[in-house]
């Protein structure tokens, strides 16, 4: 029973940790990953 509870806690910690790490360190957002700048073509 203790192992099961511990596993549920670990699951929550891993999920929240993954979300935090991806957001803050991996640039894990569609906006950051796919846009280059303000204008369409001319500022290169």
């Amino acid at each position: 029973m203790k192992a099961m509870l511990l596993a549920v806690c670990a699951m929550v910690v891993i999920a929240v940790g993954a979300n935090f790490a991806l957001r803050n360190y991996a640039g894990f957002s569609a906006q950051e990953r796919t846009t280059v700048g303000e204008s369409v073509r001319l500022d290169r």
Partner: protein
Amino acid sequence: MTILQQMLRVFVLILFAGGALAQDGPADGPRAATGGAQTLEDILARQARQPVDDGFRREATGDPDAAAPVTAPLGTRGGASDSDLWRALRYDSADVTTRNNGPAATVLIQDGGMWWLRFREGPLLGYGAWFLIGTLGVLALFFLLRGRIRIDGEKTGRTVTRFKAIERFAHWLLAGSFLLLGLTGLISLFGRKYLIPTFGHEAFSTFAIGAKWVHNNVSWAFMVALVMIFLFWVIHNLPDRTDVKWLLKGGGIFGGGHPPAKKFNAGQKLIFWSVILLGGSISLTGLALLFPFELHLFAPTFQKLNDLGVPGWLQEGRSWPAALTPQEEMQYAQLWHAIVSLVLLAIIFGHIYIGTLGMEGAYDAMGSGEVEEQWAREHHSLWLDEVKAREAGTDRAGTKGAKA
């Protein structure tokens, strides 16, 4: 100047400009007659499914270096006409820069989308739902026919340790995350068709955003647990001769006695390898979905299978598409992820049944880690012998013996 004269002048101008453009194409060579465009031979060859050298189009994308000055007629074209630009887009040689710079942003048209959408909302949902419901039905029928598998012999009151705490932790991490992923995955798959009509768009939207958050982030717990379980138990799941005997006796499920088994019997080994292989495959395609367009799993796989001639086994002369647009890669990843998950869910339904309702004494192995000795003797006799031998060895060395 009359209007007629003006029109004539414009007409002559257009004629002249057209002549100048036509001169851009090859003046001689095989396509001279069509001014560089495709010929009847090209069309016939294409209809006969022979290779057509499309270099005459592929390379006809204009020549900015030879452009007329901006002030001259057509100079504003920059040396590439609209047709030149569209050809460059079509053959993916245009230097395109857009605000959206994702890997798939330069693909303007891909024609795998409708097929995928229809398959996803049609057969995948229909057969998927019946497959899961059918599995539950089969388990219910099995329970009615066979009932709970009881411990046959007299219980001893003694227990043996079956799984250490860390093993049980890894199992529950795997089980908890898998069930949560299964639930939230099914919500994503069936939500549009079944949940929106029931709960409405607003309520489902909130729910779906939560489900997606859980699905994306809990996946990491599943992957960690999958690796742990693999490392802990692979040594006990290598196939050997006892498995053949166990399978030939059908595991003794319908009154065939209790064929001997080591730590895991052949049925459990099948569960283990299903979890590892299908779970691994789900993880891989899941990562492809989580990081869009980064992993290319399907085009290289199709290429390898084509080289081995696998599609030809199904239908003569067939081959699978080995050049996929980024969107098509994602579509295949989605389908594979969903189908394999449904299969593993069905297998796990069976596993949960036998671990709880289906067999007396089994749950303790994952609950407390201690199983009744008689249970172990009936279901894992060779393993119990090993444990006993080891305990006798440590007893003689003066350390802890069998638990009373």
